[in-house]
């Protein structure tokens, strides 16, 4: 048992024995008598016990050694007596200030003697507030080094006599201590930030901020420090860090979009329409290209209470990001740099030439065909005597280097005075991919990415009541690709056999078979030119907040204007090499080569370009009210916003119309005694996609919070459990994303294919027909219910946040599917006909503590969600097992594999299967018992490729100047359906198709292994072996060491000497280890065969400092 816990329990026992009821919090009655017995506990614990007993708050920040051991035994003594006893010999004394007791060093009395010596003494006054503008009562204000000080009153006001050269320290339980120089000022107003994770912490919520303790919605926040990883895309760093986030990354290619992210899974029919709303500094923006160094907070909003204010845009959850602002004080300059190498996490490996040829022959011969390769071919390939004519190529080996390179630098400066604060951040990111290069080419066809970010935030208090904030943020990205896309190159590596032709001929010519286009993947990589892409974004926001306290105390008005532009240019410089195929050698031993693409090769690089862009104007106006009356805490918010996004490179009328949105949002919340909370939120907004009468929707939600630990009856447990809070919310949110189409309420006339008349086909008519029928549709409605619990225990050593949720989404926008086809509709009309249920749990558990210089923290989070199609407007299927209703969204269907046929007799006695069926072929289950295997026998198989379960296990240890932290991330309830050429040997016949290195793990007549990976080989799809079936379904779960960081901080003394605030070195790794039952390729790539640029493993080293 933990020693501290033991002591608490002992203390509680004593408390009960003494039989004295504790006193009401916050009040001191001098006449009260205390009986207490404390033996050899730390001073800090003693104050806590006394607080428990008396309800008196002790203010004791920065008063020397609180870990010194004290003992006191008192019976029916006054608090003064107890404190005198307690503090005797500690060098400390106490002073009562209002209802609080301030502990300070005993020498505090001495300065009175010196007062006369001070010539210039001034009076300094000020107000101390929290970030929500609440006055903080009871903040200790101390003059540094003097021991003098005071405490703020109920309006947060303080007054002190100081020298102009003094500095003041502001400290308060649960808040970060601030020290500020007086510098001849006579008023010094201070905003104190709560300690991260504490209940007073102010967190971002939809259109506002709130104290954590008063939150009623479900939301998770990630410590932004954890996002500072050496990766190009911020969204790749999220997996496993936040409860409620489901994320998969299907490509590691530089410049690709990174990971797909869903909040609490998928609740509509398409995963792409389930993407959350992302707001950066309050404005809808993409976040993947922000440098994590510039982020100050990152939260996700999950339930109706948290998202209702977003109305029709909130149903899929919301991601809130804000960038850093400066804080009052001298300029702080921070620099961080790292450099690393990257590697593929896992590439599939291909079979060697001889194995390939033997397998190809077996596939043909054992199905009654002729061998494809003669023994002579095989022998010559094995001997490698003539790699031009008898090549043996590992195509991946030909394409990829062993390591890539990565570099990241960031510098920022922040600071400010009371009237103006600023932050400027600059960063540079640079990564070079894994492709091999042809040293003879004059151009660069590497996959590489360079990114430059700038972020600046400026806050100016124009008057005492007017605050102006300006943020300007932008990036410039330059990505380079080979002239042929990664998908094609990887695909061709799977298509080319190892023995078809070499990478390049020894005489420098490019090999390829005669084909309609280039198919040699190495040539595609190195000989087809390059693509260079520039992307840039400039995002700006200007915000003015006017305190309206002259109208009503606590009322303020905020106006916000944002203007964003985005530009994309992709320049293609492409060419085609001449390709040859060697058919033998002449008498001199020179290769006889035939040009296989006559007339198609080009020497020069062609030019073409693709351009894209948009601009967005966003306006927001809000009234905010917040006030406290005694124990009552009331706040309200009413907000109007609108945005207008224009595609500047639109190619047709519909997309050229600006994408518009407007709406109202409101919030009313009430808190009593930080114990009971109630909140009502609403969004009233609309989507242009719907008819005017269906355009605006009202999305209300309620949330309730109850801090049980504040209740009187909870007091006995409070030592062990400092916070226990329940949250409940229920409400509606909408989703107006309708399948990418716009203006569903208007019938359209489409341009169709048309027809050509005329003798010479010279009288061409375009076609016209009805496109979509007008449909009276509206948004999807998600009814969400959430029940959550927050718990802090053992002095904050353990904290838990857990939520169970349920979602019932109705009116999902679908084309009506049940209309008969003889109607001949061009497209079935839309309807709000779909219904999907989703439910699940998510939670985070943190355990932190320290032993002396060693501190540790463990974090675990878990997300599980499961959806179910209730209505999809599809007619009933012929057999119940084929039914899509009642299954997961996008459920995979396939045959049930019963194993491999063992004999001809077994085939005879089994239901008829399609095509050429022999022993060693997959035996399927006849679901409907009709004696034949066909698509009516396909049943739901597997969980699908999006995991139902995502979890993260983080840890962090620090000892003196060293720290080690990391995160394991895992997924479960997920499958891979293997398919495709290469993964399924000879799926496209014997003319093409690589095979994997595990090809020898197959059923064959010589080795009829019933548990082999591959069934009997097949030249082409002669039977149903390669249909979707449980045979090819593999468990896709994995546990991955997503990040690991070792950090060394320079010692304080050294820092002082160098005049640094902070300096550190670190080693960092990403995706270092993966544990998965699936070993063939990077399991995160999902279904198929892994023919994609895999995720990257990174090893980086770096340093950072600030001064």
């Amino acid at each position, binding site marked *: 048992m933990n020693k501290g816990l033991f002591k608490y329990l002992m203390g509680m026992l004593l408390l009960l024995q003494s039989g004295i009821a504790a006193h009401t919090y916050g009040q001191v009655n001098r006449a009260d008598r205390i009986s207490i017995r404390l033996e050899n506990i730390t001073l800090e614990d003693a104050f806590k016990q006394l607080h428990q007993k008396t309800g008196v708050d002790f203010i004791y920040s920065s008063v020397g050694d609180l870990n010194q051991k004290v003992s006191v035994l008192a019976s029916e003594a006054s608090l003064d007596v107890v404190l005198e006893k307690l503090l005797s010999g500690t060098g400390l004394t106490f002073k009562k200030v209002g209802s609080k007791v301030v502990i300070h060093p005993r020498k505090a009395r001495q300065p009175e003697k010196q007062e006369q010596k001070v010539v210039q003494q001034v009076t300094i006054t000020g107000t101390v507030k929290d970030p929500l503008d609440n006055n903080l009562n009871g903040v200790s204000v101390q003059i540094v080094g003097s021991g003098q000080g005071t405490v703020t009153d109920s309006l947060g006001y303080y007054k002190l006599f100081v020298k102009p050269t003094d500095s003041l320290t502001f400290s308060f339980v649960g808040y970060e201590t601030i020290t500020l120089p007086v510098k001849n000022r006579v008023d010094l107003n201070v905003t104190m930030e709560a300690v991260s994770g504490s209940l007073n912490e102010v967190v971002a919520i939809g259109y506002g901020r709130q104290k954590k303790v008063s939150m009623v919605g479900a939301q998770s926040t990630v410590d932004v420090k954890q996002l500072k990883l050496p990766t190009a895309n911020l969204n790749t760093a999220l997996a496993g860090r936040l409860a409620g986030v489901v994320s998969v990354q299907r490509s590691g290619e530089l410049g690709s979009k990174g990971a797909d992210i869903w909040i609490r899974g998928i609740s509509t029919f398409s995963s792409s329409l389930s993407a959350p709303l992302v707001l950066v500094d309050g404005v809808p923006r993409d976040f993947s290209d922000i440098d994590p160094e510039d982020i100050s907070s990152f939260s996700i909003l999950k339930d109706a209470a948290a998202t209702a204010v977003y109305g029709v845009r909130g149903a899929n959850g919301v991601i809130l990001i804000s960038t850093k602002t400066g804080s009052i004080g001298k300029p702080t300059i921070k620099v961080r740099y790292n450099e690393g190498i990257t590697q593929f996490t896992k590439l599939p490996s291909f079979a060697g030439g001889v194995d390939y040829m033997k397998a190809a022959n077996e596939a043909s011969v054992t199905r009654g065909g*002729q061998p494809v390769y003669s023994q002579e071919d095989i022998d010559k390939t094995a001997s490698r005597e003539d790699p031009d004519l008898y090549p043996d190529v590992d195509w991946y080996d030909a394409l990829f280097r062993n390591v890539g390179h990565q570099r990241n630098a960031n510098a920022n400066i922040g600071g400010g005075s009371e009237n103006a604060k600023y932050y400027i951040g600059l960063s540079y990111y640079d990564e070079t991919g894994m492709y091999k290069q042809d040293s003879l080419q004059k151009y660069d066809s590497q996959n590489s990415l360079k990114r430059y970010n700038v972020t600046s935030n400026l806050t100016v208090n124009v008057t005492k009541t007017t605050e102006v904030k300006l943020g300007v943020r932008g990036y410039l990205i330059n990505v380079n690709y080979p002239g042929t896309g990664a998908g094609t190159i990887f695909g061709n590596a799977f298509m080319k056999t190892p023995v078809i032709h070499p990478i390049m001929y020894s005489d420098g010519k490019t090999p390829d078979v005669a084909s309609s286009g280039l198919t040699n993947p190495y040539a595609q990589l190195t000989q087809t030119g390059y693509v260079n892409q520039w992307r840039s974004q400039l995002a700006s926001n200007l915000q003015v907040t006017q305190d309206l306290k002259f109208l009503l105390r606590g009322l303020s008005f905020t106006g916000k204007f944002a203007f964003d532009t985005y530009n994309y240019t992709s320049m293609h410089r492409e060419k085609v090499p001449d390709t040859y195929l060697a058919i033998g050698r002449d008498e001199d031993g020179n290769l006889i080569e035939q040009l296989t693409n006559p007339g198609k090769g080009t020497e020069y690089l062609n030019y073409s370009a693709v351009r894209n862009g948009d601009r967005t104007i966003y306006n927001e106006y809000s009234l905010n009210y917040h006030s406290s009356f005694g124990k009552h805490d009331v706040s309200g918010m009413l907000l109007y916003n609108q945005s207008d996004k224009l595609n500047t490179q639109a190619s047709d009328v519909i997309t050229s119309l600006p994408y*518009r949105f407007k709406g109202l949002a409101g919030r009313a919340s009430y808190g009593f005694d930080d114990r009971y909370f109630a909140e009502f939120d609403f969004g009233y907004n609309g989507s242009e996609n719907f008819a005017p009468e269906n355009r605006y929707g009202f999305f209300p939600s309620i949330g309730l919070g109850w801090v049980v630990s504040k209740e009187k009856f909870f007091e006995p447990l409070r030592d062990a459990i400092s916070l226990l809070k329940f949250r409940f919310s229920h409400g509606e949110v909408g989703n107006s994303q309708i399948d990418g189409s716009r203006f569903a309420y208007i019938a359209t006339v489409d341009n169709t294919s048309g027809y050509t008349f005329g003798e010479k086909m010279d009288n061409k008519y375009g076609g016209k027909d009805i496109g979509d029928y007008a449909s009276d549709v509206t948004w999807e409605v998600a009814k969400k219910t959430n029940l959550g619990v927050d718990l802090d225990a053992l002095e904050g050593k353990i904290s838990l946040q857990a939520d169970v949720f349920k979602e019932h989404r109705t009116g999902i926008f679908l084309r009506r599917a049940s209309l*008969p086809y003889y109607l001949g509709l061009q497209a079935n009309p839309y309807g709000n006909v779909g219904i999907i249920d989703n439910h699940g749990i998510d939670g985070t558990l943190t355990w932190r503590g320290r032993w002396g210089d060693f501190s540790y923290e463990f974090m675990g989070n878990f997300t599980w969600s499961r959806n179910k199609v209730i209505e999809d407007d599809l007619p009933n299927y012929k057999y119940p097992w084929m039914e899509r209703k009642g299954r997961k969204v996008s459920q995979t269907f396939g045959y049930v594999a019963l194993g491999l046929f063992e004999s001809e007799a077994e085939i005879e006695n089994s239901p008829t299967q399609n095509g050429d069926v022999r022993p060693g072929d997959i035996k399927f289950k006849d679901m409907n018992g009709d004696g034949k295997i066909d698509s009516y026998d396909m049943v739901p198989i597997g969980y699908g490729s999006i995991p139902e379960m995502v979890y993260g296990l983080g840890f962090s240890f620090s000892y003196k100047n060293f720290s080690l932290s990391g995160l394991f991330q895992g997924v479960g309830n997920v499958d891979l359906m293997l398919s495709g050429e290469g993964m399924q040997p000879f799926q496209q016949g014997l003319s093409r198709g690589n095979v994997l290195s595990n090809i020898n793990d197959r059923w064959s007549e010589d080795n009829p292994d019933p548990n082999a990976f591959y069934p009997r080989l097949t030249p082409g799809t002669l039977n149903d072996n390669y249909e979707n079936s449980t045979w090819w379904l593999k468990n896709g779960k994995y546990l991955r060491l997503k990040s690991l960081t070792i950090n060394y901080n320079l010692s304080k003394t050294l820092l002082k000497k160098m005049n640094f605030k902070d300096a550190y070195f670190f080693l960092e790794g990403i995706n270092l280890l993966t544990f998965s039952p699936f070993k063939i390729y990077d399991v995160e790539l999902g279904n198929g065969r892994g023919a994609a640029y895999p995720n990257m493993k990174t090893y980086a080293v770096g340093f950072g400092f600030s001064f």
Partner: protein
Amino acid sequence: MLLSMISCNKDFLNQVPDDKLTIEQVFQRKDLSEEYLANIYYYLSYTYPNSTGNPWEGLSDETDITYNRDDNYYASYQMNLGNWTAASGYYDTWSNYYKGIRSASYFIENIGGNAQILALSNGQQLITQYSAEARFLRAFFYARLIMQYGPVVILPETVIPPDLQSDDPLLALPRSPLDSCVDYVARQLDLAAKDLPASYSQQSRLDYGRATAAACKAMKSELLLYAASPLFNGNKDYAALKNNDGTALIDTKADNNKWKKAADAAKEIIDMNRFELYKETGFGGQLDPYLSLQNMFLTTFNKEWIFSYQNANVINERGLTPRKASGYASIGPTQKIVDEFEMSNGQRPITGYKADGSPIINPESGYSETGFSDFKAFDDPKARQTYNMWVNREPRFYVNISYGGRPWINTTSSLGTVIYEPWWDGESGGNGSWDYSRTGYLWRKNVSPNSDPKTGKYVSRPLLIFRYGEILLNYVEALNEYDPGNADILKYLNAIRERAGVPQYGEGENPLPAPGSQAEMRNAIHHERWVELCFENRRYFDTRRWKIATQTDGGKFYSMNSNANPPAFYSRFVFETRVFMPQYYLFPIPQSVMDRDENMVQNPGW
């Protein structure tokens, strides 16, 4: 204040342009209505043979199409293996043709009010003509549905609204009996023919390709021939095909009069005296059968043309070009059709097959499958070593088949002469690419010698849907069934043979003996029809309506040995073993169609 902000920019979300085109405007303007009509014509593409979208060649016993074997693209590969259920969704033209039918009905319903056309002096006449074109197209689509699926749903003349409640009876219509389907379509074709010009020759050159009375009659001829054939005429196998209310969909009593109707329908076109077989003459005014056969497709709107599909470049010429010339070299004739062509002396080289699949060679034909000879094909400037199998065959063989070692048809491209090499390591062989012909042959019919995939140059031309040659074959077949011995039979059969440059029956140079009995004549007509109309999307339908697909479409399929290099290449080789089940005579009503109509009944066996 906030509320006032919302109200003051009320139009913020009302930005959909009022000037967006509506369907009402389409039917007020002439050009837009004509575009709407052009859109209906587009559905002809589901009929006609780009070899990619339609299975009529890939599923027939004369062709193998296997490249890109994804289930729903060249699904004929899976279907030939027997991997086929109603739920497979293969070549679901049901939904596509019904789209065309809806568009046509909507057009007929609305075109009458087109103010802009009515204002023209010939406005009313134009409206009548356009309506008739739409009516023809609608009938055409129904006819093609009947040929593929059997009895179909005949819709009311008024277009069914799209937003009916799900219990509306109009959403649960049953299939109509075959005879009433055929009668309805034939009547519609007659109706349309009345309002249309007789043939393209009465149209302006810019209107060539629009529906004509001849096109209506040709469609009717084909449909009535189908209805008269054994598949639909008294087929007892379909006794159980009944609607839920007990209505029999196919009459099990044979009616020989249906053959008469079919013959009469074909004769109507002959009697129009507007069409004749296309012939070109060579040196000395002699008929040149090679050029006649080849250019019949390339010389557009010659006297043989009745109706054509006009959207450019739909024939897959690229699929018929060697890979070295940037082609896909993939659409392969089977050995069966190669065997079917006569020798130049009119003798059939192969009279049947032994149990092991080897051919029974007709000793009188002079045919041999061993050895090589120097042989010059008609379009080759020089003689080449040619496998004896391909020596001294009839002109239609050389016009229709590219075989290994023969030059690509385009010898004037920048590549010069490209020799087609279908063997394993050849330039168009299987090694390293799936773009190859598994049979070792390529189609050559209707490929222009001037098309060049490398430069993307294709000689655009309409594709024939109906030609006079087919009408003659329709006529003689139907006539032989209800009036055997009628002199017209030999007359028109010999007309086809004369143009093809093969000896005729009982007349002309080196005549062959005329077939004696009705059955012998039937065999001769079936053979002639296959050889003459090969690769024109007729064989699939002929084997079905004759009810011979059980014999022709299942079992081992032979080709040259494309998995080997010469000399092993030059041998018969089983490239595929096909499955033909009795239910394959008709396509299944797609399961998705079944699921959406409670009164829909499935075809037998599916």
